[in-house]
């Protein structure tokens, strides 16, 4: 239950960071979206042993975090959530690919280890790029930009509803967990035998509530075809930021060889 409470508190932290007023926050949402997407696409395009070349991309999270005045203490724990998946995917490579790629002194570094390090680095760069974008751009602006990029309305709708609804769902889970605890002799965790009915009830009541929340949004003018279009225009600084990011990313990808 403590996890639910802390999830509820953490949920709005990124939105709070997005309300700051740094040089990055002031950039046009389209610029931030383009910069993040270009870094993600370029870094994802690297081969599995391109650790050294890929490490150049560390410039992006490092510089953006500094300019946006974002605390590592908020973003790194969220990054850690993706860690087990990448570690699991990469650890198999260590076992499978044992051919030495190079030596450090007398220690052989295998291709599998290089591959694992590359996967971890890719994960760090991609997840940080996405987190930095979310932590510097309000969700409503992101949705508007996604629509501007002709992302299907149903996708943007799901994205927005999920974001708005997740806090309410957690709140509901918290009150159900409290009710469970009060009637189960102050048990701290759910018993496995109670899990199906607990989750089933949460899903059913959550579905009803999601419909009511969506109705409330519709009543106040929300319609996917009318998602607010930003009237803000791209400024020279926005274009320069996109250009610089693209240029550095392309240089790192195509022109710098080790």
């Amino acid at each position, binding site marked *: 239950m403590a996890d639910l409470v802390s999830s*509820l508190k953490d949920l*709005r932290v990124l*939105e*709070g960071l997005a309300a700051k007023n740094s040089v990055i926050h002031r950039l046009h949402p389209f610029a931030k979206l383009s910069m993040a997407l270009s870094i993600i696409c370029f870094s994802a395009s690297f081969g599995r042993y391109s650790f050294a070349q890929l490490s150049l991309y560390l410039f992006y999270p490092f510089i953006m975090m500094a300019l946006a005045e974002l605390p590592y203490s908020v973003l790194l724990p969220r990054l850690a959530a993706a860690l087990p998946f990448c570690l699991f995917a990469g650890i198999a490579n260590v076992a499978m690919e044992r051919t030495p790629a190079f030596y450090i002194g007398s220690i052989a570094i295998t291709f599998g280890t290089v591959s694992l390090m590359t996967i971890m680095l890719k994960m760090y760069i991609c997840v940080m790029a996405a987190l930095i974008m979310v932590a510097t751009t309000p969700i*409503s602006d992101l949705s508007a930009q996604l629509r501007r990029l002709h992302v299907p309305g149903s996708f943007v709708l799901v994205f927005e509803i999920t974001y*708005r*609804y997740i*806090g*309410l769902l957690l*709140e509901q889970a918290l009150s159900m967990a409290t009710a469970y605890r009060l009637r189960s002799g102050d048990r701290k965790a759910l018993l496995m035998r109670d899990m199906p009915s607990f989750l089933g009830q949460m899903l059913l009541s959550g579905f009803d*509530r999601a419909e*009511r*929340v969506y*109705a*409330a*949004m*519709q*009543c*106040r*003018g*929300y*319609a996917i075809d*009318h998602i*607010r*279009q930003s*009237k803000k225009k791209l400024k020279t600084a926005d274009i320069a930021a996109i250009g610089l990011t693209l240029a550095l990313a392309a240089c790192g990808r195509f022109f710098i060889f080790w």
Partner: protein
Amino acid sequence: MLTIKNLRVEYPNGKKAVNGVSFELSPGENIALIGANGAGKTSLLLALVGILVSEGEISVGGTVLEKKTLREIRSRLGLVFQSPDDQLFMPTIYDDVSFGPRSYGYSEEETAARTNRILTDLGIMHLSGSSPLKLSGGEKRLCAIAAVLATEPEFLLFDEPTAFLDPRARRQLASTILSLPQGKIIATHDLDFAQKVCSRAIVLYEGKILANGDIGLLSDEQSLIGMGL
């Protein structure tokens, strides 16, 4: 004028939630919508804003509710939901109140002006930075009303506005409702509250209007029992 003619709402299982309801609401008039649980009060309110599909005619100031006028009708009718928890879904009260004007495409300046004005008028400016999760029932209710008022509707629809409120919050809500100039339909079980804020009462029974008259009809206990209340 809000005009409802022969309104019918039917659930997928064939049950008629609203069955041939007709009445009019004048600007500035407050109507209490009374009825037992399942009488069709909430269904009627949801049909008025086009959330539930209905037959019959609903018009606001001559504009008839249909697919192409849905957005306009929703901007002219503000529905305050029974549970503010369903209505307040943004991280802060300020964001929530500004959600409506933003959705309707108002500029940032106009949105901010409206939001600040409504929060000030309702005396909840101090809550603007708060999360809805941290407010009391009465505060949430006022914030939900503010969120609806931000689009400056001509008529307000309240679904059980006194639910979960303590006596002090009820009194505050009554004075807030009385201070709002819009015409209102207030669906409630709270007969004292209805008598305090409304001039007319409509009693629903199994989706049909059983009585439509002066609010004084709620004082006659025998009649109320006869109407299933």
